[in-house]
């Protein structure tokens, strides 16, 4: 946004003042948005710490799966997996403060109770829990990514308004005000000079 030199009139001054006021208000709103975004990120950050737990869950589930897989062999293992419904998820994005965030709903969770053989049942339970946790964690991470991107953009806008645009507006308003005062003074002295001339002629 560029703010050039303006014609020094009262109308322009009024318009500039209105624009400055509007821009300052916008900056306040953006600052509020920035604080809220930062707050949202702060709220979500502790959830990211669960990543280690989820990784551990996956490690345990894979160890258990390896054990079960070698105990039962490929055909038995995949046949046991046939007894369980596939996981079904729906992505339904939601918008918070103009930020589109992913929301994943598990429409159908696999039921590990359907898995035959106790060893495979235990493995399936571990795998399903790990996958569910991974989905939740991925949703949180994606939310943080979107919020962080928006936060950066908002911050850039706030900085631009605070450091560049608003000071320039203020400068411009001051310039127009000074010009108007100058013109007023000039008009006053001209008027005074004319009045003095008229008086001299009368005398």
């Amino acid at each position: 946004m560029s703010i050039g030199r303006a014609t020094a009139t009262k109308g322009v001054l009024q318009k500039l003042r209105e624009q400055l006021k509007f821009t300052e208000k916008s900056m306040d709103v953006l600052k509020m948005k920035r604080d809220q975004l930062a707050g949202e990120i702060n709220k979500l950050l502790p959830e990211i710490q669960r990543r280690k737990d989820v990784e551990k869950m996956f490690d345990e589930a894979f160890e258990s799966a390896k054990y079960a897989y070698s105990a039962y062999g490929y055909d038995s293992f995949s046949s046991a997996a046939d007894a369980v419904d596939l996981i079904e998820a729906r992505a339904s994005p939601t918008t918070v403060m103009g930020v589109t965030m992913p929301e994943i709903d598990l429409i159908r969770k696999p039921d590990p109770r359907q898995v035959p053989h106790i060893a495979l049942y235990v493995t399936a339970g571990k795998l399903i829990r790990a996958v569910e946790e991974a989905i939740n964690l991925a949703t949180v991470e994606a939310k943080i990514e979107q919020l962080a991107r928006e936060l950066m953009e908002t911050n850039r806008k706030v900085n631009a308004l605070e450091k560049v645009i608003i000071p320039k507006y203020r400068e411009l308003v001051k310039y127009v005000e000074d010009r108007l005062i100058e013109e007023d003074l000039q008009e006053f002295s001209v008027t005074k000079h004319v009045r003095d001339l008229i008086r001299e002629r009368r005398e």
Partner: protein
Amino acid sequence: MKSVMIYLVTRTHGLHAHLLTREHYDILARARDLNALIENLLKSDYGPEIGKISSEAANASALNRIFYSILVSRIYFVAKIAPNRIRKFLVTYADRYEVENVKRILRSKRTGRKMTSDTLIPIPREYALINFQAMIEAPTLEDSLDLLKATRYSEVSEKISIYKKHEVQAVLEALIDKIYFDQLLDSIDGIPDEEKVKEIVGTEIDLRNIGTMIDLKARGVSPEAILATSFKSFRLKEEDKNQIATARIESVPDIVARTTYQGFASNLKSIIEENRIEQLENAILKEAYAKAKSISGRNPNSFTYVIGYLAAAEMETRNLITLSTAKELKIEEEKVRNLLYL
């Protein structure tokens, strides 16, 4: 002993010599990878079949199918050379592979997932009494179960309400197991060495019964359904079964300790207490196999030896499946050894 029986037992001794020994398992367990394992197996009875698959297609899955096909051919070969009355029992014994196939088909029917007959255990045509292909092609689980009405598994359709009440596949499978094990126990009557054969097969049935009841308990199945799907007992009393069905899982080892199977109870207790329930089935099979091995080893000149051979052949298949899959997955040797039935 009749001459046909002498022939069967002698022949079984010869067949037993083809089974892998502990030394073989040591070599296979130490194999650095799947290819090294295959190299070693090429020198065994599995060699000709393994030799037919290309090196690119030689994976654990392909090997597992070969192991099962050799197992089935071994077991039906014994049935083929056995006298009539014994053959009937041996064929009933071998029906466990038919049971496994029925279960595999029903699992895919539950979820509507596609399956092909090449994932089934190959049963010789003359012994296949169930039309597996028709079951695979049946559009729903109910249609597939309808096809079982005209077979020995008709009871499944009659008791389907138990499954429908819980909607747990394990209940359906327990019903099928019940039919199989009940018929197997009945088929022992009148065969030579009846008592010793019952000791081997009955022990397996009782232990599997305990395992199935614990399994169903872990899935939250009601005691009534657990009792309705429990098998005919050999040494396990009705009262024991009632107690197991109604007790908490943690209390089951104490109930088992009061039965003939007190030796297994301590193992069961540590499995449950140490939260290693996934090792239950392995422990049950190890116990049953140890029993079969010990009784048949003490009676090398009787029909019991034949049963010992069948159990050993099955355990060999399980061991080879474990070893080949573990080598493919690069599982440590020590962990693999714990899974083996030796």
